[in-house]
């Protein structure tokens, strides 16, 4: 995954009938609704219809920690250049929430358009906008929908209005609605009649006066739209996960909920039995305990959680590290500290997880930067956990996990399933004795046996207390030190196995940027802005795992100044780098931080770097 391969072949040319200079395929739509009003399907139809016209899109849901009643916003970014990070400016507003409507209108840029429920009477608020009042209730009623579902149908009416005003192809809207309601023909028809009611109303009663239009492109062919949590779930299934435990927590719940659906579909054997077990645990302590119990007994096990769950898992994380037990933990990060903003995004668990638990503990972290990597790293995490015999943490975030992203289709994992160093009864017979924690191969990874292995030498005593090579209890200073040194060496071995960073740019610039995770998309757009607006060329390295590999040291050494972009307050990645880097290199590091709970945008990066580099716009 590098810069988006969305080369625009032929720029769509426009002939504005109204004399307004058209803005084609480069704007944002914001839909303001009330949480629980069922707008999700409508927003999805809008997003996917534009996508199917070949135009790059990104969809982000900004929602409250609430079941129903509080405001929620969905943003669709339409970008011919393929930029899909959050864009702060909104161009087209669909105002469905009376409570926030005034404020929503004030936040628009000059020249923006407002589609709104005519009862809200918004047209006096500002003179520099185009207003499209729509009698939503009346149009929803005209579909013949029963009163109790009119609220839902209303959402489809705005899809129709937007389709007409923004020139979204109705053929694609229809196909998308039919696909979305594939199993419910009646619902599809009702929704389509609502879309048409909106479309017809706009055609007959509204006059297009704003500049924003969608024109067909061919930049999305072969691509998919998916969120990171579903991608991770899929990755786990293809990794051959067998034991899944969880305790529901936003924003990670859909990892397991989607996984349950996939496993029911694809992992039930012909005799109707499951090649897996999924357990909703009593809390995160139990969830991670089950993961380690299962990993110890030989299953590929996982759990998914978010910050508060990670806090609870700290004790077991140390046991997993010290007793050397495989397991995979997905952390879909949200803002902390404490309960924080449960429905907002963050990259704030980094330093905590790096050393999660008391004593000298170190953990391997995989940090996907795209939905495709959520899939790939999920698959890889299970191999790494068993190869390294340790818990592997996969750090996604709410933005990546719960929002809609375009992606190349995922590739089938070519790497075979690697169960690591496990001795069976036959191998034990050939060996003269088995020592669970002995470094036989010089890579600091010992051999293990699974419960049930039919050989008198197979059993060993797993413990979180001090142990020697034979897993026997010990308080001897040299036993303790030797074991801890071996664990440190095992962490070095991990460097040879984790995904390497990805470098973009020719490596000849003075300024380097380091980022990771979902920040990637804002960084690539930011680099383009710096180049175009300030003639400031940059090189870019994206970290994909911890422990850090040599490429990261080299990258910092090759640049005069390196900006570390991250979505937390305390420069967590920069601080982890500080520990690893040569002191002469550390002074080159600078922070670009974004931590207000919203996904990072390109402008936030560009502004800071341009200012610090003295680059003029």
């Amino acid at each position: 995954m590098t810069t988006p391969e969305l080369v625009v072949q032929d720029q769509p040319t426009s002939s504005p009938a109204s004399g307004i200079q058209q803005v084609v395929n480069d704007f944002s739509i914001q839909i303001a609704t009330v949480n629980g009003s069922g707008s999700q399907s409508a927003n999805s139809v809008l997003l996917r219809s534009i996508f199917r016209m070949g135009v790059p899109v990104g969809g982000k849901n900004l929602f409250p920690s609430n079941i129903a009643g509080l405001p929620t916003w969905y943003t669709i970014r339409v970008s011919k250049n393929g930029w899909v990070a959050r864009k702060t400016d909104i161009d087209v507003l669909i105002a469905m929430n009376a409570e926030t409507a005034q404020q929503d209108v004030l936040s628009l840029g000059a020249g923006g358009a407002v589609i709104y429920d005519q009862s809200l009477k918004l047209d006096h608020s500002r003179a520099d906008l185009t207003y499209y009042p729509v009698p939503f209730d009346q149009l929803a009623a005209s579909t013949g929908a029963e009163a109790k579902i009119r609220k839902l149908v209303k959402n489809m009416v705005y899809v129709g209005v937007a389709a007409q005003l923004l020139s979204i192809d109705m053929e694609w809207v229809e196909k998308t609605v039919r696909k979305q309601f594939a199993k419910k023909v009646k619902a599809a028809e009702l929704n389509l009649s609502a879309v048409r009611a909106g479309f017809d109303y706009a055609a007959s009663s509204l006059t297009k006066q704003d500049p924003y239009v969608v024109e067909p492109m061919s930049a999305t062919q072969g691509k998919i739209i998916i969120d990171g949590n579903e991608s991770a779930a899929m990755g786990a299934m293809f990794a051959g996960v067998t034991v899944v435990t969880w305790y529901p927590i936003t924003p990670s719940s859909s990892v397991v909920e989607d996984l349950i659906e996939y496993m029911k579909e694809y992992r039930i054997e012909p005799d109707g039995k499951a090649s897996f077990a999924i357990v909703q645990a009593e809390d995160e302590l139990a969830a991670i305990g089950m993961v380690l119990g299962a990993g110890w007994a030989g299953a590929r096990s996982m759990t998914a959680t978010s910050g508060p769950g990670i806090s609870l898992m700290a004790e077991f994380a140390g046991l997993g590290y010290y007793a050397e037990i495989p397991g995979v933990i997905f952390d879909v990060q949200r803002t902390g500290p404490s309960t924080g903003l449960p429905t907002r995004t963050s990259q704030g668990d980094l330093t905590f997880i790096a050393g999660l638990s008391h004593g000298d503990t170190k953990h391997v972290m995989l940090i996907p930067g795209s939905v495709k990597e959520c899939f790939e790293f999920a698959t890889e995490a299970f191999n790494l956990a068993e190869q390294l015999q340790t818990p592997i943490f996969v750090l996604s975030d709410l933005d990546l996990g719960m929002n809609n992203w375009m992606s190349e289709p995922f590739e089938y994992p070519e790497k075979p399933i690697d169960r690591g160093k496990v001795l069976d009864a036959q191998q034990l017979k050939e060996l003269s004795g088995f020592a669970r924690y002995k470094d036989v191969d010089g890579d600091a990874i010992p051999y293990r046996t699974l419960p049930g292995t039919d050989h008198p030498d197979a059993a060993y005593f797993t413990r979180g207390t001090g142990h020697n090579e034979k897993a026997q209890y010990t308080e001897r200073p040299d036993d303790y030190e030797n074991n801890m040194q071996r664990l440190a060496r095992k962490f070095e071995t991990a460097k040879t196995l984790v995904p390497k960073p990805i470098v973009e740019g020719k490596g000849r610039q003075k300024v380097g940027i380091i980022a990771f995770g979902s920040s990637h998309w804002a960084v690539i757009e930011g680099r383009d802005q710096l180049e175009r607006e300030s003639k400031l060329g940059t090189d870019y390295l994206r970290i994909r795992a911890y422990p850090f590999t040599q490429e990261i040291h080299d990258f910092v050494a090759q640049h005069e100044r390196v900006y570390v972009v991250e979505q937390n307050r305390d420069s967590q990645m920069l601080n982890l780098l500080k520990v690893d880097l040569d002191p002469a290199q550390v002074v080159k590091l600078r922070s670009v931080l974004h931590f207000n709970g919203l996904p990072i945008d390109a402008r936030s990066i560009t502004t800071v770097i341009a200012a610090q580099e003295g680059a003029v716009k």
Partner: protein
Amino acid sequence: MSTTPVTPQPPQPKTNRIGLQILDYRGGKTTLCAGCGHNAISERITEAFYEMGVQPERVMKMSGIGCSSKSPAYFMSRSFSFNSVHGRMPSVATGALLANKTMRSIGISGDGDTASIGMGQFVHLMRRNLPMIYIIEDNGVYGLTKGQFSATADIGSKLKSGVINDLPAIDTCALAIQMGATFVGRSFSGDKKQLSAMLKAAIAHKGTVMLDVISPCVTFNDHEGSTKSYKFMQGHEEPVAEVGFVSNFEDIAVEYDHDTTVDVQLHDGSHLRLRKLHEDYDPTDKARAMNLLMEAHANEEVLTGVFYVNTQKPDFTEMLNMVDEPLATLSPERVRPSREVLAEIMAEHG
């Protein structure tokens, strides 16, 4: 003519039905105090698995933290052992059994490990009816931290320092019955006969077996004024029934009186024979079992015996409808869906 000297046969070591000696079931040397009730329980466990002829490699020994949780090191060294973290053994045991449901599992906990720090996981283990034996080695006191009360200490019980416990004891048996365990009983580490029969029946049962075994702490809780001392138990133990066990490989034709004895056929065909010593005793009735326990509290008796047995309720691994083989070792072809499946999912997202 040659003579064949008659050489005396060396005595054959005694073996069980799978040809193993008691030595094959022994553990490491105990590091607990001399006279600790836990050591007697380890002995009984060793004998029970030997007598039942269970292959030691087919057993997982699980524990949390505390004196009790150390004891899996002192029996059955050929079994796989996991000494986890304080109060969290139930979750680890659950995961291990999900990974390999063909294994047998025995968990050793203590009163602190279960009734205080581990209460959350304990009740959920009972609720799931996970097929394992869960033993609380119950002495009412924290040993490794030198003698603080635990939550099973009786009201009015006295510490060595003279401190009186003024909070009610948690009855782990009542709790286990209420939460869904399917074999619940209490015994005493000093009652060899009863404990042995209960352990063998526990091995034959499929579902959660919860045994609270009063196991006096000779160092911190065996003095005058303690309700968990050897002396107190000798004076207050009140068996609800005499526990008899007839294994599936023994002759079960032994006659018994149907009026006074409850016969329960366990999952492996063994029989639990419970000769009533208490008028209201009915181990198949949850409400009556609870009632007996409540009355005993009021009378300051320590009821022992099997309080409740239910052989009908499905255990957790059955409820999950897993394949017959252990999940842990399924072949890659059975756990990684095909290329066609991925292509199908990708098409749905296009």
